[in-house]
């Protein structure tokens, strides 16, 4: 059994300046698994997902303790180059961020160029990446148009395709559908379900139906009364939504607070 893309956190604590915003988060993300992170606004989901590929440390006041293990190796170990971490663990942001000075094609290939890798079969890579993000048919005739000529939903799928071109082991998505229409959302969800055959996916979402549609496991984050955010419940999606152990989870997934 391959356990190639196994990601795991151990006792992650996060501070911004002196403020403690995440406490003792220990989660396992399995290969070929989609894990959803849910919870009310401000509980630290984005902060947590950014610790998983070392984007967190780019914030000047950031602090962190604990471990993030990719296949058993701590990505925060001293010898590890954050650049390599980010190559293996791709990220899609809440707001589509295609590079405005590049064409659609150049955007797809930008990851390879930025990380200094050789582009062997550019055309083929562009096609497969766009196909995996299910937008090849829409844009195959406009590859040399500026990326900003796409609609918001298309831009987001372009960003997904851009991450996929890097062939990451893990894909992190922070509310990838929050700015999209139902059609684009559905296509991205289908994409996620196809992608999980080959990688580990972590997705932050505010949409309970979406979590149930795509996620195998779900972690519920909560920060009460200004305390640091914590994982209240982490289980299979079915258990979290149908048989929550914690009352607060029950209330949240049934839309009664948060």
């Amino acid at each position: 059994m391959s356990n190639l893309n196994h990601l795991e956190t151990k006792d992650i604590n996060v501070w911004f300046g002196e403020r403690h915003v995440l406490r003792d988060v220990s989660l396992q993300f399995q290969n070929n698994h989609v894990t959803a992170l849910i919870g009310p606004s401000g509980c630290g989901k984005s902060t947590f997902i950014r610790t998983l590929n070392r984007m967190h440390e780019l914030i000047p006041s950031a602090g962190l303790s604990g471990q993030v293990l990719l296949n058993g190796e701590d990505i925060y170990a001293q010898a590890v180059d954050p650049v390599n971490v980010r190559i293996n663990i791709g990220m899609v942001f809440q707001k589509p961020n295609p590079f405005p000075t590049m064409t659609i094609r150049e955007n797809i290939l930008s990851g390879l160029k930025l990380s200094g890798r050789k582009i062997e079969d550019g055309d083929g890579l562009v096609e497969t990446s766009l196909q995996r993000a299910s937008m090849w048919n829409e844009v195959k005739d406009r590859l040399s148009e500026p990326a900003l000529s796409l609609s918001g939903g298309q831009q987001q799928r372009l960003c997904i395709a851009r991450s996929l071109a890097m062939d990451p082991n893990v894909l992190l998505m922070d509310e990838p559908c929050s700015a999209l229409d139902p059609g684009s959302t559905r296509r991205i969800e289908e994409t996620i379900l196809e992608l999980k055959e080959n990688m580990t996916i972590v997705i932050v979402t505010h949409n309970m139906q979406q979590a149930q549609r795509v996620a195998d496991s779900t972690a519920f984050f909560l920060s009460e009364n200004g305390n640091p955010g914590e994982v209240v419940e982490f289980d299979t999606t079915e258990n979290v939504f149908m048989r929550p152990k914690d009352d607060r989870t029950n209330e949240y997934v049934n839309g009664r607070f948060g």
Partner: protein
Amino acid sequence: MTDTLAQPRPKNAAPWEKLGSRVRFASWITSLVPAAIFVAAWLGLQLDFMAALLTIFLPIQLAFGAWAGFYSYGRKGVNDGLLMVVTFFFSTFVLVLLASVIWSVISEGAAALSPHFIYQNNRYITGTTGLEIGGAGHAILGSVIITGITTVITVPLAIATAVYLTETRDGARGVVRTLLQALAGLPSVVAGLFIYSMLIVSGWSSQVGVMASLSLIPLMLPTISRVAEESLRLVPSELRNGALALGAPSYKAFFMVTLPAAKSGIVTAVLLGVARIIGETAPLILTAVIANETNANPLAGGMATLPTYIYNFLYLGDATSLQRAWGAALVLLIFVGILFVGARVASATRVGSKPKRRKK
């Protein structure tokens, strides 16, 4: 591919531009009546133009603007009307000033302009020599060389400073920014004096083109780096983060994403920097003297530039001298114009200029 349902755009496809009849009536009245009263008063009462403009035209125009706003949109339109008059009045005023400066340079300078004015130098020319010989060729050459050297040295320095200020979290940024601001307030003659006393009076160098270039660096640097800093700051952090999240080292994220996104702002910064120094006179008189000969070597001998050429002939003051000065001013103006247009064209963002279609 398929039959298109698209239709050509009809002529009047901008319904928001159709004004109501009240608005149209009020705007006609407001644009014509005050102007008519003003012309009548100015000609009839033999008033000074500027005085009449400010004491008669502006108040009447303001009153009419307020009335037009009220008539068209009710009370909430009054402020709109007033603001419209103020902005139109002052922008027209500035525009007219600018146009008249440019016009006087063109009309006065055109007489001196001729092919030989562009390439001949100032040898054997006195204040009263006729315009049929002599020119500012040596000054044009000197301006290009001196400005060019300064630009080549300063642009990387200034952009590096801007990058330091925007991309790093270093603690000394505040100090650097303050120093830069102080430098921006440095009078140019002081920059010239500095080079003159430190490097020329001390005997280390004579008065040559490079010294002039050096004295212009502290004038150009703050202009470029402050504008470049501003345009780098405007690049959304999402783009930079997007690049870093793809596994880019910071320097590549900067060169491939941040810098291209700020390109047109940085080109503007460089242009403003060139514009800042190209008209400088005082430091050049101190460091490169007012030469009459053509000299393309910035390391030996004095070098003329357009501003010092103008200064020289204004100083002589004869009729032909003044014409030469105007001519050189016109050349300078054309020079700057070409530079600006060229840089704008070069910096226009063309995404995907090299189409690379795939065969299906």
